[in-house]
């Protein structure tokens, strides 16, 4: 939790905390090892790694959050509807889910990037197109059980409308498990972002994003380890933060992943 808080602070106050401009290139300070002037060293353009890591927190937090929020909303809504109505709606829904699940993510991701150009927008769209499935499946399975639960039947027997029962009574209960899953999913989203960066399709330069920083720093892995290490560690730490939060949520709500 403290980890997440730290990153949040970094992200919000990046302009005040970061010692340098993250995109400022200092030709005289290329590939400097960590030193008092540049605590985490500089990259091959002479940019300050610390500042870039700090500014990167903004983008990466945003990636992790947006990357799961839309899938979560779409997935839980569709899953609820499919589970609740059942029948043909559900059959079609499940086949669509199968299609999405079996569709190679790489093809989708690369196609969308190719169509819209590399960048965060394409990434979010691709994540949303694919990510919703896991939530939808989770929620649907829950709804299938819950819709026969006595309290759902009770709500119906009290004359409540279907959408009220679906979204006010069933969804909050069904989504609890998914909420925990959101946290581990955020980690996956971050890593997907990093993998895309490895293929050279990460965010537009000169933006500082950890995945891109790690990928770009690869050429210097044996000569300037600090370029990859610190953004890499940041990803790990952020992932760690999300996992802990997930665990805490799980304990809080009495659900286990």
């Amino acid at each position, binding site marked *: 939790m403290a980890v997440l808080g730290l990153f949040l602070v970094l992200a919000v106050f990046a302009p005040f905390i970061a010692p340098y401009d993250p995109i400022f290139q200092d030709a005289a300070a290329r590939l400097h090892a960590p030193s008092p002037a540049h605590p985490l060293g500089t990259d091959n353009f002479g940019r300050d790694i610390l500042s870039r890591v700090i500014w990167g927190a903004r983008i990466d937090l945003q990636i992790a959050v947006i990357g799961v929020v839309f899938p979560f909303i779409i997935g839980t809504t569709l899953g609820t509807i499919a589970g609740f109505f059942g029948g043909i709606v559900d059959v079609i829904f499940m086949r669509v889910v199968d299609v999405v699940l079996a569709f*190679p*993510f790489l*093809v989708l991701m690369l196609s969308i990037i190719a*169509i819209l150009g590399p960048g965060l927008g394409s990434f979010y769209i691709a994540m949303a197109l694919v990510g919703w499935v896991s939530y939808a499946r989770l929620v649907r399975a829950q709804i299938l059980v819950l819709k026969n639960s006595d309290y759902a039947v009770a709500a119906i027997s009290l004359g409540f409308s279907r959408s009220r029962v679906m979204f006010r009574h069933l969804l909050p209960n069904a989504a609890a498990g998914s909420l925990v899953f959101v946290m581990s999913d955020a980690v996956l989203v971050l*890593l997907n972002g990093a993998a895309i960066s490895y293929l050279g399709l990460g965010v537009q330069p000169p933006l500082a994003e950890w995945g891109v920083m*790690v990928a770009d720093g690869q050429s210097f*892995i044996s000569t300037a380890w600090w370029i*990859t290490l610190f953004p890499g560690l940041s990803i790990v730490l952020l992932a760690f933060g999300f996992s802990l939060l997930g665990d805490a949520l799980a304990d809080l709500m009495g659900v286990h992943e």
Partner: protein
Amino acid sequence: MHRYRFVLYRPLQFLPVLLGISIITFVLVRLIPGDPARVLLGSRATPAAIANIRAQYGLDEPLWVQYFYFIGNLGQGEMGKSILYKIDVLRLIATRLEPTLALVLSSVAQSILIAVPLAALAARHRTRLPDHAVRIVSTLGIGFPPFWLALMLIILFSVRLGIFPVSGYGGSLTDKLYHLALPSLTVALSLSAVLTRSLRAAMVQALESDVATAARARGMPESIVFWRHVLPNSLVPTVNLLAVNIGWLIGGTVVVESVFALPGLGQLLVRAIFSRDYMVVQGVAMVFACATVLVNFLADIITVALDPRVKL
């Protein structure tokens, strides 16, 4: 109702799924701006040469006509010809299938071998030192970008220690396994982290469940309680998680494949997308889709076998 009845009718449902995937892939890759002919010709391309290539591969036909050709070919067990490699897509895929398959299988095997004992250790010592250690390690395992992890493993095991080859895919079976050791370890490290967490959670629940208490009350020693009651009762969610992850793996090994220079399908796919080798993209997508569908099917069968309550 027979519990395994779905084994008979489920395969019928694969058809619409695969059809759907073929249509989406087809449309999607053709929506991407870019032209295979131009990729092939490179910077020296002239419009005439481009038109010539497009005609050769039928790319000048309307989209739906092309799709029907594709489906027609598929019906005859063909997938067309690669524009870049100029050979049958099916043959091309056949040459590249094995490394990917081997990588996925060996990583899954490794990650199970890692995950089960770790999860058991953590669950049995819940909230004590081993548990915290396992949880921290597994979170770290999830967090490392695979390409970075892969390089570190190479530098440590291959360059410094010289135990494993740096990269490549061997000739004989043992040679292949030897070459696969590091790549599959890379994948397994992150996969097992996911599995460990899920399995630990399930085991913690099962260890505290009434079933376990009842077994203890019968005087069963902790080992029987664990192996005969706790483990079987915690496997189902993990099996399904594993299935989903294998699905992801099948389509997502490209990073590991390129770092370790494994001549697999992932690399082929990325190359094909970048060079707009439509037929190859479609073919590989279909293979991945089939594999994913099969894996999920298998997971369903295992689930039913593991848990007699489940009906599908």
